[in-house]
């Protein structure tokens, strides 16, 4: 049975007579579009610790070639960015974006006292904590809290996955995770849920029971809303059949709809290349490279590329020296890609890693990732970065 959104909202309106209409349902009655001009952030998580040195390659650095006799990428194979740096040979479409001025690179990004456990370091990146702090909420979740105080529209933040990452989990609000708008819609539209909601919806946010009903209501109406939006202007561009391809296609379709989503989150991995790195990283980069072209083409065709910023990160980089298994082990600082038609500063935005100045064989970070977050929150999403991050970080000027 299909329950259309209008009917669902009508149900909410009916309730006003006898019950108070919960604020979080009201939110869906007055659409707040992320219309043209409204900026959208797409976070690309390279899970597992991508090897930054074989991503943006220091093609003139003797130490790099000395430390990686088996893994180093030859200068003439790398896609030249400038005299000192080249991109991984698989990233041809990223190289084109770079040449157009739509891709910038931040080098040496990290945080003090780096942690080499995947989970812990990912936690630090997702919660925007220092390495000796433990936060229970993620930075994008707290953005949702700040944007949505009392309005409760979790569709502002969507993750392309079956499970919601900590990054999207706020103290009050949580984003929605989905792999496929239709599947989310179908699983959530069991009439049993709707009937329970109708009977059980009441507004006592402090009570855990009411919290469950609130999440259920947001999920049901959110799933419906996302599904309707995904059908509005679905992308007709051909994407590769990979997971990242499907996810970017869904994101492109939603971006060209009237949906209120401001942040999309998508992951690619695993980049944990302890063994036979060359083949693994190449495969993942091919997937990324093949998916990014139709995605940016879509955005350009819909005149949204100026409003969309894609930002990549990984929980850590890898050690400078290769290991004995044709791979690299967990390291520290890493690079980030910034992809958008609206970049103010283009190209390589800071110096390449200094391989002669390492700490126990690892790169030193020169740029706290929280400065990048602060910049994006403040300048791109027009949010209160101090409130969301809890500290004031100096902004960068790439946007």
């Amino acid at each position, binding site marked *: 049975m299909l329950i259309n959104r209008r009917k669902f909202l009508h149900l909410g309106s009916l309730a006003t007579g006898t019950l108070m209409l919960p604020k979080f349902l009201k939110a869906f009655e007055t659409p707040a579009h992320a219309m043209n001009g409204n900026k959208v952030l797409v976070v690309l998580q390279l899970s597992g610790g991508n090897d930054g040195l074989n991503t943006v390659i220091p093609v003139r650095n003797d130490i790099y070639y000395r430390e990686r006799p088996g893994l180093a990428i030859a200068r003439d194979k790398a896609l030249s960015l400038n005299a000192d740096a080249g991109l991984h040979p698989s990233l041809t479409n990223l190289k084109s974006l770079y040449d157009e001025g739509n891709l910038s690179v931040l080098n040496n990004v990290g945080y003090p006292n780096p942690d080499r456990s995947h989970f812990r370091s990912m936690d630090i990146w997702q919660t925007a904590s220092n390495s000796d702090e433990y936060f229970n909420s993620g930075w994008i979740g707290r953005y949702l809290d700040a944007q949505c105080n009392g309005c409760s529209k979790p569709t502002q933040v969507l993750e392309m996955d079956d499970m919601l990452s900590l990054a999207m*989990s706020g103290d009050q609000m949580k984003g929605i995770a989905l792999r496929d708008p239709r599947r989310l819609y179908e699983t959530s539209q069991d009439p*049993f849920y709707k009937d329970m909601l109708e009977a059980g919806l009441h507004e006592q946010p402090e009570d855990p029971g009411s919290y469950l009903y609130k999440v259920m209501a947001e999920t049901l109406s959110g799933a419906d809303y996302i599904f309707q939006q995904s059908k509005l202007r679905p992308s007709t561009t051909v994407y590769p059949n990979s997971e990242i391809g499907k996810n970017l296609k869904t994101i492109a379709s939603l971006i060209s709809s009237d949906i209120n989503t401001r942040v999309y989150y998508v992951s690619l991995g695993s980049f944990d290349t302890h063994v036979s790195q060359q083949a693994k990283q190449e495969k993942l980069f091919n997937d990324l490279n093949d998916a990014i072209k139709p995605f940016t083409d879509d955005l350009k065709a819909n005149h949204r590329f100026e409003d969309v910023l894609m930002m990549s990160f990984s929980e850590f980089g890898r050690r400078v020296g290769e290991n004995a298994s044709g791979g690299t082990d967990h390291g520290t600082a890493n690079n980030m890609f910034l992809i958008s038609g609206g970049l103010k500063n283009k190209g390589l935005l800071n110096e390449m890693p200094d391989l002669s100045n390492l700490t126990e064989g690892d790169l030193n970070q020169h740029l706290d990732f929280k400065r990048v977050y602060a910049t994006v929150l403040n300048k791109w999403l027009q949010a209160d970065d101090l409130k969301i991050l809890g500290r004031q970080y100096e902004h960068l000027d790439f946007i």
Partner: protein
Amino acid sequence: MNTNNQLKNKHLWWRAGFGPPATEVTVLSKQKPEALFHSILKASEKKPDFFDCSDPQIKDLVMGNQFMGPGKMGLLKPEEKQMIRKQSVLDITRLNIRWLNEMTDSPAQLREKMSLFWHGHFAAKTINILYDQDLLNTIREHALGNFRDLLMNVSKSASMIQFLNNNQNRKGHPNENFARELMELFTIGRGHYSETDVKESARAFTGWGTNLQGDFDFRPRQHDDGIKTFFGKTGNLSGEDILGILLSQKQTARFITGKIYRHFVNEQVDEEIVNALASAFFDSGYDIRRLMTSIFTSSWFYDQKNIGSQIKSPVLWMVGIRRQLPMEIQNPAAQLILERLLGQVLFSPPNVAGWPGGKHWIDSSSLMLRMQIPVLINRSAAILSRPKDDDDIMMGMKDQALARNLIKSRNAGAQLFQTKIHWDEYIQNFNGIKDIDIYTAIRDLLLQKVMPMNEHELAKYIDESSRESRIQSITIRLMGTPEYQLC
């Protein structure tokens, strides 16, 4: 009908254990909560069976290397280390399942429930089966004993020493990780110690290490035996002295009691009650059994505001279903997929602070999944969700045997839950109950909170074709409600 006692007894079963077992249905309304508590306590005081899920390969390797001195893990050949790691991943899965079975079947409900609490309090993740099972066995042995013994043993466990880098804590090169978490998370709590306390106590723990077998190993030559000052005490303080000084602070009793109250009673703390409990806990010399007895035999524990006020953790939710619905799970590893999808993988806490719990368990994905699972279990149906990778465990080895197994179990999501529910056994519980009262009986058995949808509204989702199918479908539907997430 003494429904009041029934509700109280169920409350006790959910908080002091993993929910009422199906077999208790008929006595739930007859027993006095205090009598029930004492029977649970008595069963929980027995010494626990030692869990050993480690593969002989690992034991042989480790025991065969006894000649190797302390901290000589580095002397293992790379392939030996890799074998330990790979085999550990499989063995820890078995340990996980072993513990879930214990939680489900053991009469020592309070001991296992307390152990799960301490497992989150003393959160560690090592991916070494010997270390993980040793710490769990320590915790289960002391779960209801004395907090002083528990703290001392955990602090000297290989698991904690490795997880918080104390093997690297050496004279002249202190590593403060353990000292800091000891105070922030394990004993006294944030705001009650200074950075100097962290630095000074880290020096006292220098030389605390562990050997390959996982035994505590004190290394005098790495120990800083200079003068330290900690909480006003000055001298050549040892690690044991530091633990003693922390335990001599009443704030430690307050911190632990407050956490226990939030976990076992209500997230909204009643300061007066917690202060009184903390004083008694302190005066008893940290007797955990006595503290839990005061809580579960108090009248305020059974106050309406405490009943149904908590969101079940994924493990409590899953074990609770198994206790209420007798079933045979043909692919027990599928439970780990659920743990992962719902955010509570045993032996893999998010960080040293453990699982934050409460509302943090619930987002749109986890709630919808929890509400769908009872239907899926009943049909042995496929679940389409896939958990995220765990790179700490997989190490990018997707093409290797270990990773193949993991991926197999990950994709096992596609045919999750080959279960046989013993409906006959379950339905027997309702013998003697009139058809017209069945709904109420099942509802009162399963739920701790009033469900807004009434029997009439639920009726269209119920298979009325026979008494059996009616009982089945009411049960499955009620387990798929928001109320069933609460206890």
